[in-house]
């Protein structure tokens, strides 16, 4: 059915629901997946990336019925003629692992590619899949270089950013060849020290612990293993926090996984039936460069008398030149918006003008209004005289009065801004009305909010009660 038939891979996009960390940006009408990044829902970046790589059968899992409804409405409107997308609704707060558990019966392919719906990146998913297949791994995770510059150089980074920063980074341990994952912990969860398993360390003999990598939430799982783990460990909630660390932890004693799922793929289970089959597989094993797993499995003396079961957890580390970010915080939202119209503008899918900005032909600009580089102005928006827009994204059908300054902000659709407003480093959701002479700095304004004339806010979150 919904399988990328060619390679026996199935793609699941976890689009989430109404993420709490993104309040007030998300609302009943706008789930996280539909938050606009450069005037396109963030989910479209993932789907486009997959579509580019010829992955046209997708399962999109959304938390909550209402959210699922709006997501599926949007998908069917946008991709109906090109893609075969199934939208599955799962109850809220089941977590990513729970979401996969809920669609367990739909998973049929040999391997599953799980992609987070809030990922904005240009790393080919095939690279992850290829690494996965090459090592016949149980899980392969995409790791990206954490954006080191990003937030710090933008004017909007306030105290909030500093609080968020440790949470964005992961503590990741790799083997010397940088192919296998030995330890993973979210930076936020690490208090003082990390505990590394001695057995793994002994087997690898050398470990590289890095804090500059970010787990991009694109995983390739072996389906049989994933289903086993999900079924056996009922308490597992999250792929990132529970399933992945579990698989990494148990990679040298994978007997926990029932019926030798891993060895089944290696052809070891056939050995019992056919004695003759041992030799080819052994021959193959001897000829290939062994990873530490295989060496460990062979035991200390190299004899295979006691075969220890192992499985491989691989990583694909994206090239530094690739853009990769996750929209999981308000800060990330404005960062991604800024990057997609700025440094990573090949992702946006728009063609930029000579001034390095995108102004829709139907947008109307008043006299002496300037729109700087790295800006985007949606269709049907009107701006009065003497306005200035810098490094901002302005949505569709906004009406902006005269003498308005917009700097490093995201302004969504159908927003009315009165004369003389100044907006800096803020996010303004749809249908907001800003009356005259409002001054906003580092604020988030929830959908449908009305800011009264002359008010001034700094680093506040405004939403309808």
């Amino acid at each position, binding site marked *: 059915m919904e399988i990328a038939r060619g390679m*026996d891979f199935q793609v699941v996009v976890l689009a989430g629901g109404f993420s709490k960390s993104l309040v007030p940006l998300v609302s009943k009408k706008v789930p996280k997946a539909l938050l606009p990044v450069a005037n396109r829902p963030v989910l479209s970046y993932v789907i486009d990336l997959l579509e580019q790589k010829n992955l046209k059968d997708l399962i999109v899992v959304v938390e909550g019925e209402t959210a699922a409804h709006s997501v599926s409405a949007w998908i069917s409107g946008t991709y109906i003629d090109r893609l075969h997308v199934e939208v599955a609704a799962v109850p809220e707060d089941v977590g990513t692992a729970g979401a996969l558990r809920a669609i367990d019966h739909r998973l049929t392919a040999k391997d599953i590619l799980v992609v987070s719906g809030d990922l904005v990146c240009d790393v080919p998913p095939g690279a992850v899949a*290829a690494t996965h297949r*090459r090592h016949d791994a149980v899980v392969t995770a995409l790791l990206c270089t954490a954006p080191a510059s990003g937030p710090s150089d933008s004017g909007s980074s306030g105290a909030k950013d500093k609080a968020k920063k440790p949470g964005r980074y992961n503590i990741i341990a790799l083997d010397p060849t940088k192919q296998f994952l030995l330890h993973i912990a979210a930076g936020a969860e690490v208090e003082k020290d990390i505990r590394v398993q001695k057995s793994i360390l002994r087997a690898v003999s050398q470990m590289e612990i890095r804090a500059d990598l970010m787990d991009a939430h694109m995983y390739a799982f072996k389906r049989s293993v994933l289903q086993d783990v999900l079924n056996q460990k009922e308490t597992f909630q999250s792929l990132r926090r529970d399933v992945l660390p579990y698989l990494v932890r148990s990679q040298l004693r994978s007997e926990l996984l029932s019926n030798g799922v891993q060895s089944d793929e290696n052809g070891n289970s056939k050995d019992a039936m056919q004695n*003759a089959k041992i030799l080819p597989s052994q021959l*193959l094993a001897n*000829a290939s460069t062994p990873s530490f797993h295989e060496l460990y499995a062979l035991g200390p003396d*190299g004899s295979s008398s006691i075969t220890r079961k192992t499985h491989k957890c691989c990583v694909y580390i994206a090239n530094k030149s690739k853009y990769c970010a996750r929209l999981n915080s308000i800060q990330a939202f404005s960062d991604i918006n800024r990057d997609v119209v700025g440094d990573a503008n090949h992702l946006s899918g728009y063609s930029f003008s000579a001034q390095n900005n995108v102004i829709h032909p139907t947008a109307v600009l008043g006299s002496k209004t300037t729109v700087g580089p790295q800006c985007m102005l949606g269709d049907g928006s009107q701006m009065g005289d003497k306005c200035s827009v810098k490094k901002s994204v302005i949505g569709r059908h906004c009406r902006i009065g005269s003498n308005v300054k917009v700097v490093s902000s995201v302004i969504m659709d159908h927003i009315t801004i009165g004369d003389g407003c100044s907006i800096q480093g803020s996010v303004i959701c749809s249908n907001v009305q800003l009356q005259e002479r409002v001054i906003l700095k580092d604020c988030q304004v929830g959908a449908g909010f009305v800011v009264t004339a002359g008010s001034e806010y700094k680093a506040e979150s405004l939403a309808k009660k």
Partner: protein
Amino acid sequence: MDPRRLPRTVTDPKVRHVGFFAPVGPPDESMSSPPRQTTLSPPVAGYSLSPVMIPPPRHLSSDNAPLSPLIAADSFLPVGSYNPSEFSSPSATEDFSEDNFSKDTGWVLNENSGKAALKQNTHAASGLTPVITNEGPPMEAQKEQPPASSKPKKEKTTKSERRALQEAQRTAKAAANAGGSKKSAAASAVVNSANANTKKVAKAPPRKKDSSSVAASEKKGGDRQTDKDRKKDIPHPRMQFDDEDQVEKAKKRSVVKQTESKNRVELFRHLPQYEHGTQLLDLESKFFQLDTVHPAIYAVGLRFLTGDISGGNARCIAMLQAFQESIKDYFTPMEKELTRDLPTKINGYVSFLIQCRPLSISMGNAISFLKHKISELPSTMSESEAKASLLSDIDRFINEKIILAEKVIARHAVTKIRDGDVLLIHGSSSVVEMIFLCAQELGKQFRVVIVDSRPKLEGRMLLRRLLGKGISCTYTHLNAISYIMHEVTRVFLGASSVLSNGTVYSRVGNASVAMVAHQFHVPVLVCCEAYKFHKRVQLDSICFNELGDPDDIARVSGKEDIKYLNDWASIQNLQLLNLIYDATPSDYISMIITEYGMIPPTSVPVIVQEYGEHLLI
């Protein structure tokens, strides 16, 4: 360089052919010839023979005296001696002649006399000797002589014409003109002005130029034709990667984008070498777009590319198992026959695998086995039956030709191991390993010397496994081979392929091990399954080989501080050569052990012929 080039160009019958026949077919003449013909119709007869001289003048400038006998001798060589493949670059030879021509006008003077000489039927060396003279004045005399001796009438006309021409030329020179206007041939004008100081050159240069270019174009044509012929006769075994046309075509066909690496060693330019990493990246990013490639094939290809699987047997087994997977998933499309459609599928897979890494000869044999099996399927057979039979055929091939063959070889070879032997192995070979294990089981007392070599250091893995079995080992590197050979009593080598002249094609380094062993009078036993035999003959390891990643030899694994060659690609005058295979001449090999028995290397053709068909059963 020169001695090699001489016979090649001179014996080249195509060139000679071109010379005689070019004027007969007017369309073959080059651009500037028509005007010449219009103005000077009689001399055309004279020119008609001129291209004959194209090859000889080349050497005139280089060495004179010994040349003429050479030419004479060579002119009698049979046509068959001409090897089209040797004559690789017509453009190069063209350059050469033109270059030569423009540099020393001296030999251009000889043109006339040489032509005249050749008109005496080219048969005698004496007829050619005058050609060699480089001076202007004696030429007049020579010119007179040959026509007098042979075919006076025809010569007479040309001579007189030419003399008239020269006169005209002189007057033209005197008028301080380029003189070309009279000739009305633009080309001649240019050349004349260039060679203004030698007066007699007048006519010769343009002709020379024309003829050479004609010859060149003819040569190209001739070469192309021979190309076609060659294709008809023997399919070209491997692509020549220094042929730009072929490479371009292959690039269009290929699925995987390959960036060729820059500083390649000149001698090995005909072998593919790609920048490491570019292939992998491209292959990875295209993972979901390669619809034509079965996932199992893809995974195997990826492992070949990354070197996760290496070694002839392992690669062959991995490939065959991947084929099994793909056959399991294969369904004959509508209105197509399995026996016709499946081979094209397999061809696609094979070309994909070749792009990942060139196939070994053993893999080629396995593929032809599979194709043979497919073609043998009766058309009445149902699809599922056909698939089942193919799957079992592949299983049988793996078991009989590889696994059982190894066992039989081990049983044969063990008889050659005596107590107290010191056995040497280079690198890692699955067969040899099995021999050691077999001998160990039989309770023989022996010691193993594992000779290893960079960059792969495959011996370490073998060492680890042998030590695990309790065999006493010595581990050393290839550098110490002459020292360690003193104590060795037998050398066991694996092989990638055994060719019908007894040459053993195997991991690079084996040849030197065999040579040293031969020098020390230590018997060299090559263990090779019969499915790796090939009827091809190979004399060196240059024509067919594989180039590894040059970075492997530039880097030292585990020693990151050794990085003198880190940016070797940017150094213009440095090329790294990482050969994968070498060819061991049969002289150094005492015995080849196959599953059919132990044979001297001279008996390889017997195996190939007698048992070659058995491969296909």
